[in-house]
């Protein structure tokens, strides 16, 4: 058991910090704004244009969806105002410092999950799979041990049972496989550069116009 496996000594980066780190490793992320008041949330939403999403974020908040801390498809300033007030009120003392994250609402029919996992037997592994809220139930995923090369990354996509969804679907273009491969290679490089990164969870990474873009991300580091 090395230090990375000592779960108690881990902490999670906030979503905004996580995305900022991942952006340095070729992971395209949806732009966002982190604010602390409902008024500032509305100002950010005005700037992005509607619809937007609003989430409560903080280092100690890992499963936002499960706790109802994600508000989707907010179509105007009043809705953002109300959602922001709700979210701030939903914080509990155990959450520590919290903030509101506002981002444009993207539409996509295809969602992937991409991540980094510290396996007790094999060490850190890169993963790709079918994403979204059903990711764990569907469990169509492929792993490789970091570091990986481009052959490995392409073969991971081939491994997916539902790899057909990477082709053209219902009028949408085929997934830009090279762009997804770049994300996987980026995570592999991150693992090499940062021994303290215990896990990365990018779920979902949406496919918009064929290109992957992360709309949620969580990085876990050893303290």
């Amino acid at each position, binding site marked *: 058991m090395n230090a990375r496996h000592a*779960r108690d000594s*881990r902490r*999670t980066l906030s979503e905004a910090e996580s995305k900022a780190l991942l952006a340095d490793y070729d992971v395209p992320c949806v732009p966002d704004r982190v604010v602390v008041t409902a008024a500032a949330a509305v100002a950010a939403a005005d700037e992005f244009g509607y619809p937007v999403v609003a989430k409560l974020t903080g280092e100690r908040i*890992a499963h936002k969806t499960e706790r109802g801390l994600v508000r989707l498809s907010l179509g105007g300033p009043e809705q953002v105002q109300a959602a922001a007030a709700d979210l701030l009120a939903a914080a509990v003392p155990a959450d520590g410092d919290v903030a509101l994250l506002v981002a444009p609402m993207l539409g996509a029919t295809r969602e992937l*999950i991409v*991540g*980094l*996992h*510290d*396996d007790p*037997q*094999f*060490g850190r*592994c890169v*993963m790709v*799979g079918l994403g979204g809220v059903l*990711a*764990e139930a569907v*469990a169509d*995923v*492929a*792993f*490789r*041990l970091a570091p*990986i090369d481009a*052959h*490995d990354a392409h*073969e*991971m996509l081939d*491994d997916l049972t539902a790899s057909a969804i990477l082709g053209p679907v219902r009028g949408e273009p085929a997934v830009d496989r090279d762009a997804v491969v770049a994300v996987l290679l980026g995570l592999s490089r991150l693992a090499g550069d940062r021994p303290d990164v215990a*896990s*990365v*969870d990018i*779920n979902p990474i949406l496919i918009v116009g064929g290109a992957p873009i992360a709309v949620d991300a*969580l990085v*876990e580091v050893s303290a």
Partner: protein
Amino acid sequence: MKPRIAPERFRAMFEPRGVLVAGVSSHPAKFGFVALHNIVTQGYEGAVYGTNRDGGEVLGVPMLTSLDQLPADAPIDLVFVCTPASANVELLRACAARGVGAAFLTSAGYGEAGPEGREAEVALVALADDLGILLAGPNGQGVVSTPARLCAQIVAPYPPAGAIGIASQSGNFVSSFLNYARASGVGVSRAVSAGNAAALTIPDYLEYYASDPATRVGLAYVEGIADGRAFFERVRAVTAEMPLVVLKGGATSGGERAAASHTGALASDDRVFDGMCRQAGITRAVNVEEAFDTAAAFATQPLPRGPRVAVVTTAGGWGVVTADAITRSELELVELPESLRAAIDERLPPRWSRNNPIDLAGGETRDTIPEVLDLVARCPEVDAIIYLGLGIQSNQARLLREGRFGSDPGIERVVAYHERQDTRFAQAAADVSAASGKPVLTATELALADPANAGPATVRATGRYCSPTAQRAVAALEHLWRHARFRQRRGLS
């Protein structure tokens, strides 16, 4: 990464000039008897010595009560240990003094037997290291090496010679693979039951096999892996040199772990192991027969250069079902080029399928099958062939021969003709494969139902493997293609 053990050191275990069996019993039900029996009866030509407490003679071998009684120039490289754990420290020291380079320990009472046993095992490994002895086991079932005609194991069978190198964390899986080898005729170079794998581990044996001219493919059964990262790195280097088929036990245990992330929750032991195999170029089999089928295909067929398969069949239904299996796999059912159709048209009446599967539809005459196999193998658009229908004529020949009219000269003539034909067909499958450098797999349940049938019997005689079903041939061929593709993409020869 741990440096490889020099292959020369393994000669003491797999090519010993002489073997000492320690702890011989005179009782045929005891391991100490069986070990000596198997060594002296299966063709081993080196010197054989034995020790026990009572002296005397067992199976014609004089029993020593002390290693001091060994002739000074006795060339012993391997000690096969059937003594209890308590005797082994002294034994290993005495063996080292005699120049013994390798020890295979069947003795139990080590790591599998609680804290005291684990302590004894650690001490044993350290001692063997000090003495410069390669230590296999303890708690293993033995070692087989057909180039040396060595059957140093406390279980059966002794396999035919061949190119498959087996290393197993379960001794009984060694026996399973050896039984498949005996049944199919596709033989084995080396086999070892790693037992507790206290010193020599599965990767150590596989590294030796990769450097061994007698071994063309590795076949391993693994359960627990102590250091996954090291296993990965070492086995990846092995697969660069030879194909490796792995059967993993405990694939479904361990299950999902509680984890903070979705990624962690999805990272079951089996999924991570599976990904590791893909990355390392390991051919992972899902069960024991697929493991042997695939190792046998690697051992006896050239690698396909691409995924395009042609099915040649004398019966419609078999071809259809085989085509279905190919369609579900990563192989492709190749569209026949017009030139090939035209060439086959010249040899068959128009009722043949004119498509893939190439169903000869009963239109074949004496030479059609060898000719069509040759045409298909020469076709540049075809990377591999699966040939179905072997043995049909000989199956009827058997009924004719065994029926009450079997001695009729007309019937005898037809029986001989049928059997000659199936012999030719099986020979043609091997010949066109050798000439074209393409895999040509045969499949018929007669391989099991009537192994003496001239079809499967001739497949064995050509050194090839006759799959019991077409589906199993497709699965093995798919593994061959996946491995070939792995090598192509990475520029491995």
